[in-house]
């Protein structure tokens, strides 16, 4: 059933790309306009902070698929309102929904649920502009309150702060873009195992690299690689494992006020300190992860 859903979504995305190519194929690459880089690199975020006066509503789903055995699907969908009050700063905020479908996975209870997941906010500040530097850099901070555990789907109290440095460069004018992120993400969860352990801190760091190539005025395809490390403790105290993800990315500007962005990452390497023989880390990370965003500006 899930496969059919994803196949359907894939076909829809291909149809949208083709229709977008047909509609926007007229200008040559020399006539292409500049584009906002924030959403062209998949999970990697570009430096864009939007345009002063711009407002946007989007549905942004990030899904994690596959553990070491059984069936595992978990996702969070943000109902996101984004606005740019000046030429340097952007804000995003909204609630999100959490979905889990888990069956026969070691260490996790079976469940099938859709629930209100919590709230998030994000502030982005453009530190270096591409008009003054070949590399544009934006700092972002995203606090989240979560009432459903991301991995297990259990009811919890979780607070997370995602801190990122988003950098990008235009390698070929209006055609080829390079993006990179640095990530530090501490979080605390109240008694996740229900054993009276109090607040349990953990943290994640990561680095990514991405390339995005404009194949048509309104379509960019690319690839990204992420290296993520997980720790017990909020300050990277005890290393527990790492993972490398690789995958394709897609960005389509459907019309001047609407776009979609998608990415599919597969874990290709990883390690788990509790399982020296493991070639992947499926305890802290999923086998695959996917992202799909549709946004309307107004």
């Amino acid at each position: 059933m899930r496969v059919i859903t994803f196949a359907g979504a894939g076909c829809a995305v291909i149809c949208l790309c083709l229709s977008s190519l047909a509609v926007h194929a007229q200008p040559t690459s020399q006539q292409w306009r500049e584009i906002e880089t924030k959403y062209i690199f998949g999970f990697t975020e570009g430096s864009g902070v939007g345009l002063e006066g711009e407002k946007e509503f989007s549905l942004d789903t990030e899904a994690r698929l596959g553990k070491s055995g059984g069936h595992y699907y978990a996702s969070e969908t943000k109902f996101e309102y984004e606005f740019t009050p000046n030429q340097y700063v952007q804000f995003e905020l909204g609630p999100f929904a959490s979905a889990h479908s888990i069956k026969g996975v070691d260490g996790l209870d079976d469940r099938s649920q859709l629930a209100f997941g919590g709230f998030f906010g994000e502030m982005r500040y453009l530190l270096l502009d591409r008009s003054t530097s070949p590399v544009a850099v934006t700092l972002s901070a995203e606090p989240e309150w979560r009432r459903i555990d991301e991995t297990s789907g259990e009811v919890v109290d979780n607070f997370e702060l995602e801190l990122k440095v988003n950098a990008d460069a235009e390698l070929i004018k209006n055609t080829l873009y390079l993006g990179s992120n640095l990530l530090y993400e501490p979080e605390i969860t109240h008694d996740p195992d229900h054993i009276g352990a109090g607040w349990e801190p953990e943290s994640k760091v990561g680095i990514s690299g991405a390339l995005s190539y404009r194949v048509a005025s309104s379509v960019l395809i690319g690839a990204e690689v992420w290296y993520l490390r997980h720790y017990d403790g909020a300050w990277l105290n005890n290393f527990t494992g790492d993972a490398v993800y690789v995958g394709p990315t897609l960005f389509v500007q459907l019309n001047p006020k609407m776009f979609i962005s998608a990415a599919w990452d597969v874990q290709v390497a990883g390690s788990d300190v509790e399982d020296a023989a493991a070639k992947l880390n499926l305890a802290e990370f999923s086998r695959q992860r996917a992202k799909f965003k549709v946004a309307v500006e107004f």
Partner: protein
Amino acid sequence: MRRRFLILSALFVGLIAGPATAQKAATVSVSVKNHRFQPKELHAPANVPIAIHVKNLDSSRMEFESVTLRVEKVIGGNGEAVINIRPLSPGRYEFYDDFNQEADGVLVVR
């Protein structure tokens, strides 16, 4: 505690307001008629704030937009607006009407 809150509030307000620019802005003007910018090329000095005065002489509304200038502004039919731009480095900054993308122009900063 109260002092820390005040400092954080001031920082937050500062971020929303944008970096302070005490310099006087250079003003440039452009009009839109029959869905075309006139003139198509504007000139402004580098490293000072810029105010672009846009007059829409058409009866339909337009949206002045530029990714590199990082602004968008809807201007009603037969309306006008002033768009404030941060100090810019020398270069060419494209702009266009997002409701009629054939209308475009460039701000040349020297």
